[in-house]
């Protein structure tokens, strides 16, 4: 049973059934129970005030025209291990062998019938943790209904990125994927995701990062104009561990990216960043919840959106510092560059602090291109369009700087330059 069978509202939720599978069955059954308990989100929910979830919860995925961008997918030049899903269905032919040193790779679908799997201790567990204090029904639905995804167990430093590639070939595809990643002590991996995935995509990624381990995530959500996506990242960080996630979003009619991070060990560092560029019918929502529950941890949220022709950007970001989480350093910035008066940016930054020795800062701004900077560049001979592009890239630079790999960051920058070059002044 896929999400296409799910109807909005209680009667249909009642009709949902969990596939009879091995080790994940308990997690699925309880996820379905909590989904029924929570109900599907509606625009009346405070957490969905700025983003209407109707098309994400509708019985059928609204169809999305296929888009041929006329360019190679991002990261095609990067040496990596490729795992390809077409409309949410694994494509063995297009994927590489799952063999790479220091990482054990398997598919949720392949292991489903086994009684026991290491992922059992995480599947739906981090998602469940992330349901408090704010409910995330689409994530629970994902845990209950997902039948495929990738399970990564990282035991050391992995030499190249594991790349999840999501192709979109059916106009009505409705895909659910659930990935579980366990980075053991001393492990270090980069996971990339890119591509439009499906007409409608519901994805959960649960990441458990042990003491001293590192997880890097770089994502580019596909450019298909009509695609919709609701994604959740749940991460739990051990002591002295590192979590870094960056997302580039260019186009897509609706995107809701939730990122729920819990810093549970001392001296851990988390960074979640995003650069979104939207033109026209584009609604992009970054919803972040970071919980500090240990000493001397640092978290950073850096979100930049460039919007034009009526595009809408949303940012809901919260830092929760629990009692005793002293020496917390929390930073949050969300900014939009509105290229015209039709575009909109809605931001809700929040801080909730129960420790007395912390440094938390947050800022949110919304504005047009700096006319003085524009004139300065023009007065040096830089044509208007090029000057605007330079300033747009400069605006996005702070988010891009959060990407540690120079190779990946360069690839993203080049993609942004392409995006800018396609638009007229």
């Amino acid at each position, binding site marked *: 049973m896929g999400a296409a069978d799910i109807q909005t509202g209680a009667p249909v939720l009642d009709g949902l059934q969990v596939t009879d599978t091995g080790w994940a069955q308990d997690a699925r059954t309880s996820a379905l129970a909590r989904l029924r308990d929570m109900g599907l989100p509606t625009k009346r929910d405070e957490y969905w005030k700025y983003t209407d979830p109707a098309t994400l919860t509708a019985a059928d995925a609204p169809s999305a025209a296929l888009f041929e961008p006329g360019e190679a997918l991002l990261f095609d030049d990067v040496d990596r291990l490729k795992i390809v899903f077409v409309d949410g269905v694994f494509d063995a032919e297009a994927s590489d062998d799952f063999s790479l040193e220091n990482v054990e790779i398997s598919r949720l679908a392949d292991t489903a019938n086994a009684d026991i799997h290491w992922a059992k201790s995480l599947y739906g567990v981090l998602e469940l943790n992330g349901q408090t204090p704010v409910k995330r029904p689409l994530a629970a639905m994902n845990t209950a209904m997902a039948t495929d995804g990738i399970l990564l167990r990282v035991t050391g430093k992995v030499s190249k990125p594991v790349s999840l590639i999501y192709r979109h070939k059916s106009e009505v595809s409705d895909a659910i994927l659930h990935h579980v990643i366990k980075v053991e002590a001393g492990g270090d991996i980069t996971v990339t995701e890119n591509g439009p995935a499906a007409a409608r995509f519901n994805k959960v990624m649960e990441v458990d990062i042990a003491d001293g381990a590192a997880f890097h995530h770089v994502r580019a959500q596909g450019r298909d104009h009509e695609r919709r996506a609701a994604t959740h990242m749940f991460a739990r960080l051990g002591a002295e561990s590192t979590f870094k996630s960056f997302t580039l979003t260019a186009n897509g009619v609706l995107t809701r990216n939730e990122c729920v991070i819990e810093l549970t060990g001392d001296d851990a560092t988390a960074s979640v960043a995003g650069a979104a560029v939207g033109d026209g019918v584009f609604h992009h929502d970054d919803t972040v919840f970071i919980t500090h529950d240990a000493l001397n941890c640092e978290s950073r949220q850096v979100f930049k959106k460039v919007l034009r022709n009526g595009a809408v950007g949303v940012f809901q970001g919260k830092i929760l510092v629990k009692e005793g989480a002293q020496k917390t350093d929390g930073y949050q910035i969300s900014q939009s560059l509105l290229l015209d008066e039709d575009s909109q940016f809605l931001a809700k930054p929040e801080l909730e602090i129960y420790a007395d020795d912390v440094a938390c800062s947050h800022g949110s701004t919304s504005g047009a291109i700096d006319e003085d900077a524009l004139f300065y*560049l023009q007065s040096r001979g830089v044509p208007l369009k090029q000057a605007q592009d330079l300033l747009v890239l400069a605006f996005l630079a702070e988010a891009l700087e959060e990407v540690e790999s120079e190779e990946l960051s360069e690839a993203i920058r080049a993609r942004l330059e392409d995006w800018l070059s396609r638009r007229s002044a």
Partner: protein
Amino acid sequence: MLEINNLAVGLEEEDKQILKGVDLKIGAGEVHAIMGPNGSGKSTLSYVLSGKDGYEVTGGSATLNGEELLGMEPEERAAAGLFLAFQYPVEIPGVGNMTFLRTAVNAQRKARGEDELSAGEFLKVIRAKAKDLEIDADMLKRPVNVGFSGGEKKRNEILQMAMLEPKMCILDETDSGLDVDAMKLVSHGVNALRDEGRSFLVITHYQRLLDHIKPDVVHIMANGKIIKSGGPELALEVENNGYADLLAEVA
């Protein structure tokens, strides 16, 4: 080189006339200075010539080597050889100084139908010019003018001028915010660029800059007009007596 005839300019957003018929003619290789009290229209003149938004030209003309400037975009004026050293150079976070300079140099070369400079060629040129202005590698790497001191900003303006090699340079209160040593350094940079084919218009409040950058002609501007022109001695007269006498003379 630069010929301004009866230039009249008002503000776009309010009914206010700032320049009320400015006449100015600067020959090739000449250095002219404009002095004048606050609000006389000196900076407006520099902005209008370089094409800043917000002004409305209500009459007159301004030509650079016979080409009418006033209808051109700012970047076209730059490509035609006009350069304005800003009184308040703009900070541009996120754009590296080097990237900015290379983009500007190559944009102008492209507009003039010349080949763009490669990264290597550019680096060679800029290193030599930066060294003369005591601009170190760090200043070239940092975002444009961000965190620069007043002196660093002005030196950076002169570096841009040296890299772009314009024909007509306008210096808008380049001495403001400079200590004596910085003023010498900046003046030295400007003097190094003096050339038969290059002219300067130096806008300043103070005569002391003109000790370092020696003008051929000094103009006094007041209430949107040039009210008197003369040799360097005119600047000394202002320094000693202020503008009151000159204003009274005209009135």
